[in-house]
């Protein structure tokens, strides 16, 4: 289930990756396991702005953390390659892990939890530089901190303050600055612009695009904001219940989603027209438990098009258009009947 892009070498690739968590602590026997990431294979090309979207709880953050070696991987592997190194991320020794942590960074989903309340903003942003020993003097560190802070639209007078004195969006920009200050090659940006107004959001997205173009930074961009994803991402993967159900060039996918879940998701983008209230598809049917994934196609309990075959046979991963892959038995047949993306108009 991979989507190779010929002109780019692959930066990070996942092979049959699985992550599980226990749900509850029973007195006897083993607890049921949440299959947060359930056998995912995915290739992320170098310098891609790669979108990862999908249902809340479907495993996006866990997948991102697995790439950073911050989730308990129970199966499969993560491979990282750049011009200098190639790592099997699951089996790094201490020195290699240090080096890897410099190349790959995470921008957290919840900035409140990520920022230490006892450090000034300057120290928070400078910490990666100091821990990794990337600068030789305090002046150089300050210089790098001021540069990235200004690019993230932070006020320089603010650097001496503590994080609690900032608004949600300001805190989010602090964590972006901290992740970018050490000039990583690969960034997992988890809902990194969700707390920003659209103007500052546009600024930060333009910054990330510039870093991608100038430094060939690869970005795994986890987001619920589909209009942002349509704008900045060149490729998108859609997750549902621990698995990827569709992946492809973002333009083609927004023009014609091929999986019924993708179509349902796109149709629910809230319209800017107040007279179109409550439109968009709601997913009916039972929300499956993450500990007992439905047999057959994992989406069948909520799929408006499900048939008998979907309840028993797990769909193969198929290419339906150039670079666009989907896990659905009836994709071709359904393409014509599925909803087009919602429209946002001003």
């Amino acid at each position, binding site marked *: 289930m991979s989507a190779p892009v010929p002109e780019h070498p692959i930066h990070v690739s996942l092979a049959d990756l699985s992550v599980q*968590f226990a*749900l*509850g602590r029973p007195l006897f026997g083993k607890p*049921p396991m949440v299959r947060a990431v359930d056998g995912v294979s995915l290739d992320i090309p170098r310098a891609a702005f790669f979108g990862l979207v*999908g*249902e*809340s*709880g479907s495993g996006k*953050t866990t997948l991102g953390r697995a790439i950073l070696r911050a989730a308990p991987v129970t199966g499969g592997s993560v491979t990282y390659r750049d011009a200098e190194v190639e790592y099997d991320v699951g089996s790094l020794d201490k020195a290699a892990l240090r080096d890897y942590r410099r190349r790959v960074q995470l921008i957290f989903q*919840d*900035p*409140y*939890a990520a920022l230490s309340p006892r450090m000034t903003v300057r120290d928070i942003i400078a910490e990666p530089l100091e821990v990794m020993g990337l600068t030789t003097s305090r002046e150089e560190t300050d210089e790098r901190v001021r540069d990235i802070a200004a690019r993230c*639209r932070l*006020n320089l*007078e603010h650097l*001496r*303050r503590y994080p*609690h*004195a*900032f608004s*949600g969006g*300001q805190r989010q*920009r602090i964590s972006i600055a901290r992740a970018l200050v050490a000039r990583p090659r690969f960034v997992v940006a*988890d*809902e990194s612009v*969700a707390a*920003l*107004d*659209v*103007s500052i*959001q*546009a*600024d930060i997205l*333009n910054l990330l695009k510039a870093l991608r173009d100038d430094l060939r930074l690869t970005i795994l961009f986890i987001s*619920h904001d*589909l*209009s*942002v994803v*349509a*704008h*900045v991402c060149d490729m998108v993967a859609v997750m549902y219940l621990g698995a990827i159900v569709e992946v492809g060039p*973002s333009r083609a996918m927004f023009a014609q989603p091929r999986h019924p879940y993708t179509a*349902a998701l796109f149709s*629910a*983008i*809230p*319209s*800017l*027209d*107040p007279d179109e209230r*409550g439109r*968009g598809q*709601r997913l009916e049917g039972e*929300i499956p438990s*993450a500990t007992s994934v439905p047999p057959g196609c994992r989406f069948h309990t909520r799929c408006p098009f499900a048939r008998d075959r979907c309840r028993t046979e797990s769909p193969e991963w198929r290419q339906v258009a150039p670079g666009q892959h989907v896990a659905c038995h009836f994709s071709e047949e359904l393409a014509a009947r599925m909803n087009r993306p919602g*429209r*946002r*108009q*001003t």
Partner: protein
Amino acid sequence: MAANDPALPLLSVRNLSVDFRTDEGRITAVDDVSFDIMPGEVLGLVGESGSGKSVTAKALMRLNPGNTIYAPESRIVLRDEGREIDVLALRRARDLMVVRGGRVSMIFQEPMASFAPAITIGRQMEEQLLLHTGLTRRQARAHSIDMLARVGISDPAKRIDQYAFEFSGGMRQRAMIAMALSTRPRLLIADEPTTALDVTIQAQVLDLMRGLVAEYGMAILFITHDLGVIAQMADRVAVMYLGRIAEAGSVRQVIRTPAHPYTIGLLNALPKVDDPDAALTPIPGDIPSPLDRPSGCVFHTRCPQAMPGLCDRRVPLLAEHAAGHAAACFALDPAEAPA
């Protein structure tokens, strides 16, 4: 006890100004803000990051920290069953409880901040119900499980015994929504309540909130950066910039015929799904430091229509230019604007 009078605002905020004492001096976070919310009304609050939306919301529940200074003329009045509660004058803890989870409840912007890490989600939901309703512990647990199911959490009877860190970002946010709605508040303060939700679950959660508005006239102060969500939820909208209300009106007026140059800039910055090639266009100029607020109109340093000698000297007041639609801008005032 008298029922709530539907003709009177449930909440009236008048001349609210909030400063913070900091090492670098006094910071003005909210500057002379006034608005009303009627029973059953949804007021959307949008605006720049750092413009004072959360500080305004927390003032309604008196949750701003110790370094907060409310200006003496500030008034927040909550009308509850014939009583008028002067929120900024409340002193005793048990009086404050009325606006903290009783008649008013809040969905916080950062879910991690509002769940204690070492107590299960269920325990926290139950405590809230025991404090503010007459339910027994057993009933409170059953009700909490039901609320978790209504926000789309699968296996709610098992999930309720998990800790916040075991939930995904969006599940935490939904648990907080479930908790805030479980006490059937008269006024819900929702601060960026759906940022961590995918659009299908977001639609389900918005349906649930709309249902409570219709069912018993819950009112909502709905803070969000997502103008699509505003279009779907709000009756009226207020737009904030650097502590002041720049524009207010019905949702159709503000989205279809924005009047203030800041609102126009905001709508222009929206990415459009129809046209992924269009460049993303932020509002130009530097965001002013709250320590160094611009004189006159706070937006004049970034405003394409700023009139030198006027906008940098005098403060424009919020004035109606159409019925129910007001903006604070000299360019809209025929007495000030050049023809």
